[in-house]
């Protein structure tokens, strides 16, 4: 009980006695951050597939695998945070259909099974067949197993792969919106909490998810290309940076709209929320989320990328430009993580009596600790590494039936 006594000493004003313990900690911050990356990466992949944005084609397969890797890890922080993790399956067995959280199981299952796995399978099926023909040993059997016995490489079958993949992506876009919009809804629908309760919450979550997903893919594409000693496709990088800029503008506008709306309405919670922002959340909200995570990347991308002017307001050589892109993408990741922090933790730092502020004591060890959350942030990258080894997403690994048959 030592941490709670510590918290009790740092409470200012009055909070309800039961509010001394903060209920959703770092793990619940990690969860929306991870699902946001899933949704964002998938939306990027759908740009190629549905909207025919050919420039970002080099990121297509990597984005799909990234979405899958993050989706596999996404429920782990939630599971670790449950008081009774062994009962988690009750959400599937006896769901309360009035609960936004109960719908999680179904949205997650839908997204994993119907959207991501199917799309990846249809996209890779041809390659899986050809790889298994060429390879020996474990890889041969693994790839053969993954074809699920569908070895037909006739033009008709390949055409079906294409149209099925496209159809699933079309379903996938609203699904990705649903996946992350619903996470926003979980917070936005809590009328007891004036910091969360906002109809804009799902939309803000969605656009910040797309921002974080595109920024992550930009980083991963750049990193994987440099590590493989391949030339970086600057047309692709420029396009990614442009999309990032546009989306960041929308995201920032929505955040500002929410901010101004709250200030202008000035409901009874305005005083405590103002105090919250100017004291406990000043670093994570004003500095990290707004200035470093949004305004600075906006300036960087706006001046260097072709978003506003064909060759950028400031024309820079490729190497420097992509370095700045990467810098902006890292800043955006920090900013989006801060956004999740400010929603989840920020929403619990003030009392529902609107009379006081409390603190969050982060632990290092234990399930709710810093190390576990850090591990859960790294784990998707390890999963991605395994996926890349099993299903190489690089253009040179892609097989062509004629070449494979000969």
């Amino acid at each position, binding site marked *: 009980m030592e941490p709670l006594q510590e918290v009790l000493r740092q409470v200012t004003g*009055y909070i309800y006695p039961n509010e001394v313990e903060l209920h959703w900690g770092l793990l619940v911050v990690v969860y929306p951050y991870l699902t946001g990356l899933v949704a964002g990466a998938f939306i990027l992949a759908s740009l190629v597939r549905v909207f025919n944005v050919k420039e970002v084609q080099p990121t297509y397969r990597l984005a799909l695998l990234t979405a899958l890797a993050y989706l596999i890890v996404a429920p782990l922080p*939630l599971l670790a945070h*449950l008081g009774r993790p062994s009962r988690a399956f009750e959400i599937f067995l*006896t769901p309360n259909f009035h609960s936004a959280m*109960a719908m999680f199981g179904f949205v997650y299952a839908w997204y994993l099974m119907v959207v991501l796995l199917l799309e990846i399978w249809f996209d890779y099926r041809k390659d899986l067949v050809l790889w298994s023909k060429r390879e020996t040993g474990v890889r041969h059997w693994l790839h053969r197993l993954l074809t699920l016995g569908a070895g037909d490489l006739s033009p008709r079958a390949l055409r079906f792969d294409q149209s099925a993949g496209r159809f699933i992506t079309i379903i996938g876009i609203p699904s990705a919106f649903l996946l992350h919009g619903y996470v926003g809804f979980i917070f936005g629908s809590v009328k007891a909490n004036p910091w969360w309760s906002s109809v804009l919450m799902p939309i803000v979550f969605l656009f910040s998810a797309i921002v974080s997903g595109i920024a992550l893919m930009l980083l991963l594409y750049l990193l994987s290309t440099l590590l493989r000693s391949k030339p970086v496709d600057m047309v692709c990088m420029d396009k990614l940076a442009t999309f990032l800029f546009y989306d960041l503008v929308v995201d920032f506008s929505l955040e500002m709209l929410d901010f101004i709306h709250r200030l202008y309405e000035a409901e009874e919670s305005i005083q405590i929320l103002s105090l919250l922002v100017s004291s406990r959340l000043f670093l994570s909200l004003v500095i990290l989320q707004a200035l470093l995570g949004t305004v600075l990347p906006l300036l960087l991308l706006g001046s260097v990328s072709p978003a506003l002017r064909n060759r950028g307001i400031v024309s820079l050589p490729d190497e420097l430009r992509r370095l700045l892109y990467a810098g902006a993408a890292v800043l955006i990741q920090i900013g989006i993580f801060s956004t999740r922090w400010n929603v989840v933790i920020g929403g619990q730092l003030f009392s529902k009596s609107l*009379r006081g502020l409390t603190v969050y004591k982060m632990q290092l060890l234990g399930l709710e600790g810093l190390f576990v959350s850090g591990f859960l942030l790294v784990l998707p990258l390890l999963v991605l590494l395994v996926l890349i080894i099993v299903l190489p997403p690089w253009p040179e690994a892609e097989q062509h039936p004629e070449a494979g048959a000969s």
Partner: protein
Amino acid sequence: MGEWKRDAREPSEQISGSRREFLHTCSLAAPLLLLGLRAAAVEAWAAPEAAYNAREHYYGMGVDVARCIGCGRCVEACKNENDVPREPYYFRTWVERYVVGPAGEAEVDSPNGGIAGFPPKPSEKGVLRTFFVPKLCNQCADPPCVQVCPVGATFATEDGVVLVDRDYCIGCRYCVQACPYGARFLDPRTHMADKCTFCYHRVVRGLVPACVEVCPTGARVFGDIRQRSSPLARFTRFNKIMTLKPHLNTKPKVFYAALDQEVR
């Protein structure tokens, strides 16, 4: 004594005989009588439970703010009756003290939930008004906690009490977040949500909740909302009633009389 008996025996032989018989019969009947009494007692104890029909009741509580003296006996009784963790972060009920200054600014405190009363204020100079407010789960008719529970572990009974099913609760704490009144906590021993039950185990036996039972000033009134003869119905008939955070439309069933606008 023997002398007296011998004198008296003759004339009352007949009566004495029947008295002896009567006493004899009584001594034979005594165990039966005791058995009967015992059976009746057992039945009386068990009867309300066995015959309890939740549909016939709809419970609520009245709190007369003007009567509360902040002694904290309700908090102590609640912790004892319901085995609530003793640490000062877990309460099914607690008492708040409001001290409103001359400019209208309210200062609120609830040291350890008010379980041991309140320390005197350094100075009562310039105090505009001051009062105590007992708080507990409002047993809302439209409870947000029930709405959000992903597995339906939190539910409302037919007689209007919101309970937690300990066989189902997964400890996600969404209900704690959804409660506007801070009335829920996570029991550190079971890792499950916990809250006021209106002492449901007592109520179904015709008793009142422990906090109501011990209140020395009658600041808490418990009863059936729908029965006109219940103490609660009387309370709501003779007082101007207010509920907490009515704008959230949770329809609380804890009714406050003499509630101040500062109370949230």
